[in-house]
């Protein structure tokens, strides 16, 4: 397995299940934190920290599905591996439909469980990476003047300087200056790179 960052957050109301899962994660050299209820998780773990959730579907007071909804509302992108007991298949299907990465039935085989956990951690890493990129690009675009934004849009659309100058009713020299400022502010190494950066936002 590749080295993965992130913590496995176990949320299960059964102490023994929690404790044994924690031990299994430890055996796999994964960092792990346990919570006895969704409410405790929301209280003690408010930041969107890197990692994944290993979440029991059925719990008193707040179910695993309700926690998922709450996390989505809060804009969390933490992947969730649901653990379900016997006969919770309809719940699990619902969980899958709403973006749970996977569900696994108790009692589970360790290989299967760990594979899912690793997948979830990896997905979180990728997601966090692209999220960071999106934020970076958005911040850079916010620093552009309205005119620079216009120029960037036309450059990315593949227009030559001459066309842009005509369109905006300015000299080609002025377009070149705007363009240089756009490249600088966006941190773009080339036109191809600028197009790629703009594409990040389209996803």
């Amino acid at each position, binding site marked *: 397995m590749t080295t993965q960052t992130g913590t496995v957050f176990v949320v299960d*109301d*059964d102490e*023994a*299940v929690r*404790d*044994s*899962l924690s*031990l*299994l994660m*430890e*055996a*796999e050299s994964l960092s792990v934190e346990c919570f006895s209820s969704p409410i405790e998780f929301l209280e003690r773990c408010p930041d969107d920290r890197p990692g994944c959730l290993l979440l029991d579907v*059925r*719990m*008193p*007071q707040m*179910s695993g599905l309700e926690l998922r909804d709450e996390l989505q509302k809060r804009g969390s992108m933490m992947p969730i591996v649901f653990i379900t*007991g*016997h*006969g919770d298949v309809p719940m699990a299907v619902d969980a899958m439909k709403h973006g749970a990465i996977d569900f696994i039935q*108790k*009692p*589970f*085989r*360790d290989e299967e469980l760990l594979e899912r956990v690793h997948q979830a951690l990896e997905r979180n890493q990728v997601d966090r990476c692209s999220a960071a990129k999106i934020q970076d690009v958005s911040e850079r675009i916010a620093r552009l003047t309205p005119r620079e934004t216009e120029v960037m849009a036309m450059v990315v659309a593949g227009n030559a300087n001459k066309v842009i100058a005509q369109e905006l009713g300015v000299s080609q020299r002025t377009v070149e200056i705007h363009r240089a400022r756009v490249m600088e502010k966006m941190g773009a190494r080339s036109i191809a790179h600028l197009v790629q950066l703009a594409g990040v936002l389209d996803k």
Partner: protein
Amino acid sequence: MTQRSDRMENLADARFDALLGAAVDAILVIDDKGVIETFNKAAEKLFGYPAADILGQNVSVLMPEPYRSEHDSYIARHLRTGENRIIGIGREVKGQNANGDVFPLDLSVGAIHHGTRKKFVGIIRDIRERKKTEGMLRQQQERLEHVTRLGTLGEMAAGIAHEINQPLTAIATYAQAARRLISSGQLEEERLLEILGKTGAQAERAGEIIRRIRNLARKQPAERERHDLVAVVQEALRLAEVDARLYGVRIEFREHEDLPPAWIDPVQIQQVVLNLIRNAIETVPASRQIVIQASNRGREEVVVEVSDDGPGIPEDLISEIFNPFFSTKELGTGMGLSISRSIVSAHGGRLEAKNNPTGGASFSIVLPTAVSN
């Protein structure tokens, strides 16, 4: 004595003999030493002795031990103290016939003052048939209770499977983690022992769930003894929690210290408590909290109250809910509350239902204490 009074006495005797002969009940007269003076036809039939053989014998031959040896002293005590233990009261006692068979009978005794000496007349009714019918009814009732308990456990199958799955999951996961830790050389002996201990405890936890189910599922004649009601409620609660978790309902048990012991059959009372909790969980889906409270009303009664915060019982149905086959559940048999009430009544108690002023319904099991029994 005149001829006239002689004739009168002969007539009275004839009437008395006719009366004795026609009576369905066994009738006998004994003197103050217990010697049998009169033994009617029904008595001959009931005890299997011809009157000729039994007249002049002590009445104690018609009883099994220890009454046989003690009967003379009963009469002596009555004559000494004048205290009535059976005269004018009547009670169920045991008789023994010529074959040596012991059987139940109802006995009522009257005293006759004859000059200075007392005599006693005993009227005896054979209650073997009644006992047999009662026994059959009780057996039927117990069978019905048993079937209902099995039905309840059947309905709880999903929850029970879930509940046993938890310790199994922990056991499997501990074992897999230990295996991984050992093969990567990370596991010291002390740690391994700790994990093995936890694994064992989880196996016991699963066994405990199965023990509770088996206890409730087994078929056994009802037997009342002195029991701690709180412990009995707790057993039922452990089982009910299975469903509570499944439905996301919280159960709070407000125990009571110093509750007087109750005179109960623990399995039957568990069945009632379990039924009430499951009703609260299932028939009131809006219920999020169930409170169980144990308390006592003086030294005479102990009470277990099961309250929910659901919509309560519709006023027009409150008188119907204890009827057999009444159910609001889609798959309910309608036997739960009906059987629960008959169980509590057989204990000499009451099962009461009411709506709470703050909303929700409350069911109270009121039982006599072991002291009052």
